[in-house]
């Protein structure tokens, strides 16, 4: 199955959001879009141009944007907010907590430039804590798609998924490889069948995990490769079925090792099927300026780290 996963070119996940949002504008007149002065960065221009009456420029005022979105949802609209991931979560956590999550408002919080790969802007903008923040909110759906197509599919799916949701995507051009693959909120995507080690990845790290899996297969290590795009609610059945088969797991995410995908998986395994786990994630630090590839290497979110992590958990399992 790994052989069939091929990149058909590169586009940014945020472009997938923009395309999905425009499509929603075409088919669902309840969908409205709010943006906090980052129209171009969020790729919301096509929606705005096609549906100016359903686009709301909010200015650099994210707290108010979250409240206004809650109000629009109260009135029956389906608001999609757009700004950087940092300003979509940490900056407005209490607004999301009280006015959206606790109030069960049907608001879709759409966040670009998540993680290290926004690059040169540095750590003020490179949030690595957002998945944890949003996972902790009761009732919040949390989705971190891996490429253009999956982000587009997730955006479209969210309009029919009632309740508050956080959609996390990024800045860089990134390999596209999920076209034609199924997408269902809360359902893991099984990319490759294997028996020796489970690799579970989310977001940009999925493509890197695909490449690591190819290397491991060449070394004779059979990889069960799973893409978890929906971190909450988590597809526990898929995780357990895989780890019961392989006996060990590596989790991969562009996020602090605290609070993200790895934590979510560990909680499932420790309570239901304990197994050796390695965390490919940022080791409790902030990021810094640099090229995306340089940052992924420096912060150990690269192919080599995943391969070593897989070898490591296999050794523990067999010890």
């Amino acid at each position, binding site marked *: 199955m790994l052989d069939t996963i091929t990149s058909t070119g590169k586009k940014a996940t945020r472009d997938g959001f923009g395309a999905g949002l425009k499509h929603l504008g075409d088919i669902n007149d309840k969908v409205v879009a709010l943006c906090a002065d980052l129209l171009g960065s969020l790729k919301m221009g096509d929606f705005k141009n096609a549906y100016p009456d359903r686009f709301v420029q909010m200015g650099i005022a994210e707290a108010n944007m979250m409240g*206004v979105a809650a*109000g629009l949802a109260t009135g029956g609209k389906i608001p999609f907010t757009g700004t950087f991931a940092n300003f979509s979560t940490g900056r407005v956590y209490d607004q999301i907590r*009280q006015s959206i999550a*606790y109030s069960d408002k049907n608001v879709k919080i759409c966040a670009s430039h998540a993680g290290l790969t926004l690059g040169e802007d540095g750590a003020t903008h490179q949030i690595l804590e957002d998945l944890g923040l949003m996972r902790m909110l009761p009732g919040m759906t949390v989705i971190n798609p891996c490429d253009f197509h999956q982000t587009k599919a997730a955006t479209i799916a969210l309009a029919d998924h009632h309740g508050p949701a956080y959609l996390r995507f990024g800045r860089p051009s990134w390999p596209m490889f999920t076209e034609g693959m199924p997408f269902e909120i809360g359902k893991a995507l099984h990319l490759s069948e294997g028996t020796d080690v489970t690799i579970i990845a989310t977001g940009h790290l999925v493509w890197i995990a695909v490449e690591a899996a190819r290397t491991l297969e060449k070394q004779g290590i059979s990889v069960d490769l799973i893409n978890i795009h929906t971190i909450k609610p988590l597809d526990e059945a898929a995780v357990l079925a895989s780890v019961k088969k392989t006996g060990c797991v590596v989790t991969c995410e562009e996020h602090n090792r605290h609070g993200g995908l790895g934590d979510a998986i560990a909680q499932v395994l420790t309570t239901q099927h304990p197994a050796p786990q390695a965390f490919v994630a940022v080791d409790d630090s902030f990021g810094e300026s640099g090229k995306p590839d340089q940052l992924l290497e420096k912060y150990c979110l690269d192919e080599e780290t995943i391969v070593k992590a897989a070898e490591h958990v296999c050794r523990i399992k067999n010890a």
Partner: protein
Amino acid sequence: MTDIKRLEDIASQVRRDIVRMVHRAKSGHPGGSLGCADLLTALYFETMKHDPAFNMDAADEDVFILSNGHISPVWYSVLARSGYFPVEELKTFREINCRLQGHPTTHEGLPGVRVATGSLGQGLSVGLGIALSKKMTDDSRTIFCLTGDGELQEGQVWEAALFGAHKQLDNTIVICDRNNQQIDGSTEDVMALGSIGSKWAAFGWDVMEMDGNSMSAVVEGLTEAKSRLGKGKPVFIVMKTEMGAGVDFMMGSHKWHGIAPNDEQLEAALAQLPETLGDFAV
């Protein structure tokens, strides 16, 4: 012709409800609740078009948002007295497994509440979002939002002030409860607000003043505010009230912001407030 006496009688019962609820719960916020009893009575029994059957989306209804959610007792009383839920439920205020949470929430399914409030500064943004949705759907009804004066110290309020004026949300009336008190003392000592009206006028709102503890002044003021709608500017009312209004020993101090009366204080308060609609049973 508005029957002011009828509204005053309702407000007296609402004030009884407030002190009895807070006394029974041994916690809560009586001061601001008493100060705003006339306003909420006028809104729900005279000014607003609203349906106690309660539809979340408020289509073709006026909407009230209580941004300063800690004065939940006055809102719960007025909602119950206008038919949103049984008056007897007021006795459950702040109890385990109740819908009348310390601060208002949608989470327990209480009819009449459209968003949780309590963490200050957030209600106006939500109200403006509902106002915008009404504009988008050609719904000509009005959004009323009550905010505390101390609450204006929250930065989000001023983001919302910019937004309301910029989007010309002239279907919105914000009422600021100007009682000059907050938890730690006078607003002007804690963090001076100065001329609130001048500030909102500078932000592009149509500003007026109103005596919030005279029923006739409240009814007239709300009528005047509604007449100013539809002219390109949202309306902001500086509503002067006395914290604790209606109970003499609770007035004129921030002391009664967030404490409950004891048994003797309850009796002293109730002696000043005629029972007009029948107290809720305990």
